[in-house]
């Protein structure tokens, strides 16, 4: 059965950051230099081809974009300046919008204005809501801690857990859709159930080490990315489980020390990454989609306001501390509710999942390919 070509898909992808894809004439230099390409997953050339021809279903079912970490060697070597690296990046954005069933991701990627507007709106709702909540529960804006505290940690804690539930629900649905596109929709893409068990440890392994990024050639981008990710996870754990300690008057070094380190990691890594994008240092930095900026700026603002309200509190300025706390929440809530499930953030789930799926697919395909023969031997055709 012939697959229908859609020459217009490429126009859509341009809104996700793709450019010059049609310039590719399939010399294959990109796949030849790619440190990640292997006999099962050959890219970026094949992904370029699927995109040129607009084979949407094939792209939806492809893992390759998630196996690329954008070292940019392909773009550097491309004789036609077809930017294969950026194409893979834009395919990840497009896939993110496809995995998301709500359409919010698609809206945000295609219209950064809508994205910012939604975040500002949600931020305002959060701001107004928190102020009303704080005052309505007998809080005093001049008090940071204790009985009359403006924002009580146990209230915020409950709020955080509610938010987390929403987030996990959304991300989980998107991840399930990713699985369905890649591992289930087409019969030939399915793998036996026991492979899911066999490879399940790959999920935490890749989540916490991001080892594949380290195989991209240079180690510096990997270290930076790892630092950012570990800081983020540390902070998430602290807030979700130890918010009372963090927000209290007394020192809890087991919470505060990792908190400070994570804050340093977040601020340092985002600042460094923003600098890279401004100076366009590597091929990865040459192209910045609006969503990349939103990601970095927002994370920086959240980390900065988070530490600022803490410092203000500790230096005896509860009023200012409370105001900055509200601002912090106005930035953090939209980030967690809108950005993490619908935008660049979502790759924290898709990347390890892709590695997990890829391992299973590799095992199935390798079993189908006959083992290589010893040198000099020839395969005899059955009569």
């Amino acid at each position: 059965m012939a697959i229908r070509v859609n020459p217009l898909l490429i126009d859509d992808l341009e809104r996700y950051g793709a450019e010059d894809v049609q310039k590719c004439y399939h010399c294959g230099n990109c796949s030849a230099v790619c440190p990640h390409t292997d006999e099962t997953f050959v890219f970026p050339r094949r992904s370029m081809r699927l995109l040129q021809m607009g084979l949407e279903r094939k792209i939806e079912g492809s893992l390759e974009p998630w196996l690329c970490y954008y070292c940019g060697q392909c773009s550097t070597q491309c004789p036609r300046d077809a930017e294969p690296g950026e194409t893979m990046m834009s395919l990840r954005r497009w896939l993110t919008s496809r995995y998301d069933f709500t359409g919010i991701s698609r809206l945000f990627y295609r219209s950064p204005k809508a994205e910012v507007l939604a975040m500002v709106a949600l931020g305002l709702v959060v701001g107004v809501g928190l102020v009303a909540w704080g005052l309505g529960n007998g809080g005093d804006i001049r008090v940071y801690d204790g009985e009359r505290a403006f924002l009580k940690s146990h209230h915020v804690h409950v709020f955080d857990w509610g938010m987390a539930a929403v987030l996990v629900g959304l991300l989980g649905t998107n991840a399930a859709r990713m699985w369905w596109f890649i591992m289930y929709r087409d019969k030939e893409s399915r793998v036996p159930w026991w492979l899911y068990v066999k490879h399940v440890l790959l999920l935490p392994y890749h989540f916490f080490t991001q080892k594949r990024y380290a195989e991209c050639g240079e180690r510096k981008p990997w270290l930076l990315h790892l630092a950012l990710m570990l800081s983020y996870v540390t902070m998430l754990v602290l807030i979700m489980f130890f918010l009372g300690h963090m927000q209290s008057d007394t020192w809890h070094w087991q919470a505060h020390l990792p908190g400070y380190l994570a804050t340093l990691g977040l601020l340092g890594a985002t600042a460094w990454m923003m600098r890279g994008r401004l100076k366009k240092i590597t091929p990865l930095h040459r192209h910045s989609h609006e969503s990349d900026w939103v990601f970095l700026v927002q994370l920086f603002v959240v980390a900065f306001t988070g530490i600022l309200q803490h410092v203000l509190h500790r230096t005896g300025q509860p009023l200012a501390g409370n105001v900055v706390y509200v601002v912090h929440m106005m930035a953090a809530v939209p980030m967690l509710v809108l950005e993490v499930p619908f935008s660049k953030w979502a790759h924290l789930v898709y990347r390890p999942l892709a590695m997990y799926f890829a391992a299973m697919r590799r095992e199935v395909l390798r079993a189908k390919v006959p083992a290589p023969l010893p040198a000099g031997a020839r395969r005899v055709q059955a009569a």
Partner: protein
Amino acid sequence: MQPCKIGVYVCQCGTNIAKVVDCEDVVAFAATLPHVVLSKTYKYMCSNPGQDMIVQDIQSHGLDRVVVAACSPRMHERTFRNALQVAGLNPYFFEMANIREHCSWVHEDHVAATEKAKALVRGAVFRVARHEALERKTVDMCPEVLVLGGGVSGLTAALDIAEAGYRVRLVERQGALGGNLARIDLTAPYLNAARDLLTERITRVTENERIDVLLHSRLVNLEGFIGNYRATVETRDADNPPRKTEFLVGNVIVATGYQEFDAGRITHYGYGKLPNVVTSFEFEQMLRQGRVQMDDGRLPRFVSIVHCVGSRSQEFHGYCSRVCCMTALKYAHEVRSAIPGCRVSDIYIDMHAFGKGHEDFYRRSSEVKTLFLMYRKGDRPVIRKAQPSDGCDMLIEVNEQLSGETIEIPSDLVVLMVGMEARSDAHEVARLVNISQDKEGWFIESHPKLDPVATTTDGIYIAGTCAAPKDIPDTVAQARASAARILAKVARGKIEVDAVYAEVDEARCSGCRICNDLCPYSAIEFDLEKKVSRVISAVCKACGACGSACPSGAIKARHFTDAQIFAQIEGVLR
């Protein structure tokens, strides 16, 4: 046979001959042959010292015959004949024994090869003793030129010759000048209008008083030989009765062009059945009229271009038509500028972008989002009508090579890039001007690399797409090359004819005319009054066919007399 003094020279050709043939042995053997007064071997006889050796030996030893045992006479016979001439000897007192191509290159056994070389040398020595002094003749060169075809090739050649001061008769079958180029809109890769290229040429041709343009005309007869052709041209206007014009020309340029492949011959493209499947020439017409649209007037949203229609295939033409790839890229640009939202798919086998500026043009075509889809030679796309729900008029199914997928391409308008083929009446022209065609019908040049515009008939030149598919720059280059070749000959005023040709002994000729039809060069005419055949020596190529066929033994081939050939055979076999 009078006594003579023969010198034999055995060339080693570096090691080409010497590594198989014992040259010293051959030299010693040659010295024993009758009339041989001198025999030598040298590393390269064709080199200047080698030639000088021959010249000095002729002068100091009084040699009057020379044999060189070396390579093929096609390679160096002319070289050594010149050496004889320099030494004051008639150049036809020379014979070559081919001990390279016929011996050292094809044999491994040194002893047997040396024996064969000796036999060949003996044949040459026996033959050369019977050579006669021959004189080359000169004939007058008529400076007027006949150009067949009024396309860009014929126009260009006519202008070059007329502007050098000579008269040109330009014969065009159609009622207007311009040929196939007049059917084209823009040209690749610089997107200049074909009209602009042509209008300037046509104006200059029609205004040039040295060029006689004969429209609605065709050549019906050509007699004679280089420098002295008598041409008969028939003109058929719509209103007037056909009339014939006769004139004398020295040379002829054949620039009759090509015709396009009939797309209807490939059934699964649906040409002639599906309404919006058109050929590239029909599409050019749409472009020239500024109306790229479907048969019902709608604007197409998807235009698909199928390459190699009739070209590069087993069933039709095996060759590449050379211009279609760039023409197809040109369509992509023209369609995108005419209908900005329209998408162009280029369905090709290989993208041939070999010319100046072509690769860059290919790159720029991809920048306007042309979708390039590759199919395999022999695995042709299939075009079929789409369902209403498909959102397009047609679907083209193809096994796409760069993805490995079987795909279908939405299309509203399909352009078939029909290739060039030899004109169906090319054989008539070939017969009239006495040139040959290859298996595809293209006229054959004298040498595909070194003599691309001359033919095997002296004074007949070919230019442009009558010889093979080519683009405008190559066509123009050939037109100007043929004009230059003719002008160089015309400038000398007279032409020298080789002294080797057949002669008819009129006393012995019975007038049976067997030779007339046999001659592949039409070099034998029949004298109706005397009832004898006569060889036009300037046309004769000395192939010997007539001489061997003549039942009365009336035809003698100069330099290939019976006595000479028998002597050589005897020498080889003894």
